[in-house]
């Protein structure tokens, strides 16, 4: 891809998600986990995905690497990456992309590695496509363990996952993902299972390595602080929809959607007045088996009015260049 780069191609995103909808078939009905998602992952940039738990972040992340659960079904839309449509890719097509152009870091480092195989063997296994000698593969493994700042990297090749701490294991996972030199790295809440100091270390490491290797990253988190730290662009998800997206700067300094504003108000790092309990957004997510007809956030929105119930808001252009799925941002509403 990089060899064909032209002036126009550099503006073209690495991945374009176009109207993606994903359903889960369950015995108690069809869950519409993703509805009409539009997103782009720019080349060499970090896209953050934020939202409460259950709003579809992992479903989106897994659909980018074709690892959705067995009961999942792509109900519509496309995921364009170069000449591929990832939403329609078959098993063989995925095997060629995974571990070469797309890699993923998972939420829980304690269970992400094979418990009965050494770190070294696992790092050799993922190089099975490379026609280099075993000792060269080992050298590459050590090199990448050093990249993620694991002390005494060579000796860790013979260690089993349970002999390493959670932070170390997540570093190993990052090393493995980067070893495959992907164009797209997906990280699904990679720091949620770690404590706060480790979280900052891992985020700093990811930022550094992303800049060094120049890959695109989709970083899923429900922690706004980390997203602000790491991401160039941000998409805020609510109940299976993108409700606001734009540059990280615009979203954090001038949030337009009431849900984004509420999320920011609840972020512990931003709370200025001491309270006994962490503030939360009142109310709960709507039932995704029957998503509400109008605005999905209506029931919890302090500004909701009649139009929000009748009419599903499209993504309006926002004040600071972002896109906002809220009738408050409708230019016609201002004029009225």
């Amino acid at each position, binding site marked *: 891809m990089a060899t064909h780069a032209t002036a126009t191609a550099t503006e073209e995103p690495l991945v374009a998600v176009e109207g993606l909808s994903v359903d889960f078939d369950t015995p108690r009905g069809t869950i519409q986990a993703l509805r009409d998602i539009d997103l782009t992952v720019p080349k060499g940039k970090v896209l953050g995905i934020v939202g409460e738990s259950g709003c579809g972040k992992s479903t989106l992340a897994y659909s980018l690497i074709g690892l959705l659960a067995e009961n999942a079904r792509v109900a519509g839309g496309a995921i364009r990456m170069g000449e591929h449509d990832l939403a329609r890719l078959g098993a063989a097509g995925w095997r060629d992309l995974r*571990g070469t152009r797309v*890699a993923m870091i*998972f939420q829980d480092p304690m269970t992400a590695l*094979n*418990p009965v195989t050494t770190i070294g063997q696992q790092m050799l*296994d993922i190089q*099975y496509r490379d026609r280099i000698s075993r000792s060269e593969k080992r050298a590459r493994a050590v090199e990448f363990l050093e990249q993620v700042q694991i002390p005494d990297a060579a000796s860790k090749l013979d260690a089993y996952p*349970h002999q390493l701490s959670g932070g170390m294991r997540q570093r190993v996972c990052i090393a493995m993902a980067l070893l495959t030199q992907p164009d797209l790295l997906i990280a699904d809440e990679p720091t949620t299972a770690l404590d706060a100091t480790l979280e900052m270390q891992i985020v700093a490491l990811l930022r550094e390595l992303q800049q060094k290797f120049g890959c695109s990253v989709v970083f899923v988190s429900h922690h706004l602080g980390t997203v602000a730290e790491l991401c160039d662009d941000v998409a805020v998800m609510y109940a299976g929809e993108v409700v606001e997206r734009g540059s990280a700067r615009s979203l954090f300094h001038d949030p337009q959607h009431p849900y984004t504003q509420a999320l920011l108000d609840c972020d512990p790092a931003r709370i200025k007045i001491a309270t006994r309990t962490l503030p939360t957004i009142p109310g709960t997510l709507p039932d995704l088996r029957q998503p509400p007809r109008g605005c999905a956030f209506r029931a919890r929105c302090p500004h909701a009015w009649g139009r929000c119930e009748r009419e599903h808001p499209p993504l309006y252009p926002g004040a600071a260049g972002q896109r906002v799925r809220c009738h408050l941002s409708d230019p016609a509403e201002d004029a009225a």
Partner: protein
Amino acid sequence: MLFYTAQRLVLSVVIVMVAVSILTLMLHVVPGDPAVMILGPRATPELIERTREAMGLDRPLPVQVAMFFANILRGDLGQDVFTGRAVSQIVLEQLPYTMILISVAILWSAACGIALGAYSALRRNTWLDTLSGVVSVGTISIPAFVMALYSVLIFAVWLGWLPAIGAGDGFWDGITHLILPAFAIGVAWVGYVSRIVRASMLEVMTQPHVRMARAFGLPERRITRSHILKIAVLPAVTLIGTGVAHLFSAAVFVEVIFARPGIGALLVGAVNERNYPIVLGAVLITTGIIVLATLISDLVVALLDPRQREEF
């Protein structure tokens, strides 16, 4: 690993000692005096008393147990009450027949059970999975001696394909004589092993590290082998280790039905004759082997699963 092995070894010796003590006590609860059995119904009370003395049966129980232990340490399991031959020699003569029978039964049933279980798990909810489930549960619920009787009836009597009696002479003859008894003992274990492998594979398949392996585009066969099966066989190994005890009791029936030499046949004969030293000797050796089998299966599990090595 060394420390773990040493720990397990000490534990095994303790288990054997406890088992021997319980066994000596139990033999005294069973009616029938070994001295009376040897001497026959017309023996005088004085003669019986003298024989009892010679066998140590008049001593207090704890002393008998202690004496037995002391003798075991010297490699002396006592003498056959009828022929006077050393029990250790008699038992060791019969042991290979049973060991071969049990080993072959374990090997074929484990191989088939793991393959069937893995196949069912990979093709879950197909009609072949359902069929294998029904057949497995069916074989589990049929006792080994019923299996033995029917396999004799079908393959030896009706079809005449395989011999029904004895252990055969020479290598090939030995093998043809082994097929039916090993089948009869092992067939239930195909069921046990396949059920447990299927269940544990289905569980391991949902673990995050399998998803991670897929995320790296590893070939599906390699994922099945080194990410799923390698972990899913662990409960089966433990099951087989503890199952050796059941295989020995199945071997008792099967050896009698096939008129095959072995520990089982020896034991049944000795119990009927109240041949007290042989019963003790045979059960002692069997207990030792069962404990050894458990030990080996624990060590195999530890070898396959590094997490186990650091427990205890």
